[in-house]
């Protein structure tokens, strides 16, 4: 009993200490609401700190922002259907004191432009166009459809999950790009050292271009996938788990460094190119 009481006291002290730290650190919580029309455009630029955006009610953009110090302030503006928010760093702000945490809900058909240097960028349940940029920020897109998805990172990992009918362009220098159940008329990933990992069925009549300099490319598809695959690594190994119907290759390659073939009706085109990374087309285990 005594032990439990002591543990409870310790917990209370910890909570009070954390609350005290938060108070001392000068955290400020701000709530913003914007009335918007159909297809609004929302732009958030937050150098340090996460930006989490979800689809919500129509005609309203709601923002909850937690500022970690008085070294950063919010600059906000609205012009018709356009809403813009910037975490404005004041003199002396750094990667700790300049942090602002954003949680935002927007109409599902809103278009977004989000930028963060280091904070996580997360977009979920949206049908509008998404432009997401982060230096080392991880970028996540979940359960989105029918929009353009443009992602740029330097080191930040990129995760696209359940993105339907998207026009998707991802470019990253060193971040791994992971796609699960992603399809659309145009899906392109351009990486330097980061890996490109795709797991999906390549949809219907889409074009999928994955390119890297040294990063490995791994694409996993089910046996029913309908694809024409062209794969080549100039200085790396290339491997396929499928018995593809061979097609004439448009280039001369060393054995084991390229293949070109079709599976089923070859509805979608899949191009996997690397300079020195390993390329593996894997068959999904049932």
């Amino acid at each position, binding site marked *: 009993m005594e032990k439990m009481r002591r543990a409870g006291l310790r917990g209370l002290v910890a909570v009070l200490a954390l609350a005290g730290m938060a108070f001392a650190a000068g955290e400020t919580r701000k709530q913003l609401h914007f009335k918007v029309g159909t297809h609004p455009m929302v732009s958030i630029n937050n*150098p340090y700190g996460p930006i989490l955006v979800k689809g919500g009610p129509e005609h309203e953009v709601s923002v909850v922002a937690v500022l970690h110090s008085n070294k950063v302030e919010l600059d906000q503006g609205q012009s018709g259907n356009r809403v813009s928010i910037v975490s404005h760093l004041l003199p002396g702000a750094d990667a700790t004191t300049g942090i602002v945490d954003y949680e935002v809900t927007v109409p599902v058909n809103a278009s977004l432009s989000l930028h963060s240097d280091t904070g996580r960028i997360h977009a979920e349940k949206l049908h509008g166009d998404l432009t997401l940029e982060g230096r080392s920020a991880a970028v996540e897109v979940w359960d989105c459809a029918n929009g353009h998805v443009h992602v740029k990172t330097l080191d930040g990992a990129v995760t696209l999950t359940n993105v339907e009918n998207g026009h998707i362009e991802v470019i990253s220098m060193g971040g791994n790009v992971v796609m699960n159940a992603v399809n659309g008329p145009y899906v392109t990933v351009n990486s330097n050292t980061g890996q490109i990992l795709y797991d999906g069925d390549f949809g219907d009549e889409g074009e999928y271009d994955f390119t890297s300099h040294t990063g490995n490319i791994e694409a996993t598809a089910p046996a029913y996938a309908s694809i024409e695959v062209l794969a080549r690594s100039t200085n790396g190994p290339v491997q396929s788990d499928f018995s593809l119907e061979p097609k004439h290759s448009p280039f001369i390659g060393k054995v084991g460094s390229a293949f070109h073939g079709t599976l089923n009706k070859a509805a979608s085109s899949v191009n996997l190119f690397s300079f020195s990374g390993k390329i593996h087309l894997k068959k999904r285990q049932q």
Partner: protein
Amino acid sequence: MNCVEFERVLSGSPEGTHTADQQAHLDSCPACASLVADLELITAKAKLLIASDEPGPSVWNAIEAQLRREGLIRSAERVRVEVPFWQRWRTAWLIPAAAALALVVGLKLYQPPRVGDPNTVAKQTAPAVAPRPVANPVSKEDQQLLSTVASRPPAVRARYRAHLDAANSFIHDAEESARNDPDDIYMQQMLMNAYEQKQLLYDLAIDRSSAPDLGEQ
């Protein structure tokens, strides 16, 4: 001037001043710029320690012994640590700065021995500091990018420099392959992708923490 020459003259430079040669090297070498930034930070912090008690001789002897073990000072230079070495410093408050400097240099140069390496002992006693590789030359346009991020923290600048090297390497490889086979449209596409990566670096180098151009609410 390369990195080795720069480090050789660094300790003789008065605080915060550099010759034109040194400044030119600093502008082109993120690694040395990072080292100087670290040293300036240490020096600034050390000023706060003016009032603190100077550690006893045993501490300095231990540091000297550690530096000797690391191979950072050689037997030929063996002198009483306190007198000639410290006299090079103008004020006593720089003593802890010097100790911190030695530790920073030691950490930067320290290479842990590999497991099972029979030459470990010989390597540890090998004379002095191995020369650091000279950084890749920076083109005018790349210099522009690096100057855009010059105000960022050293680690961020170093990452930009590394990514710049990676993008240039991709461009070089793709260009060479495209030159070898001008009809290879796929390699031409790779080359375009490589340039797109360089464009990405420029895009993300821009500081966007300014006010929006929309009307305030």
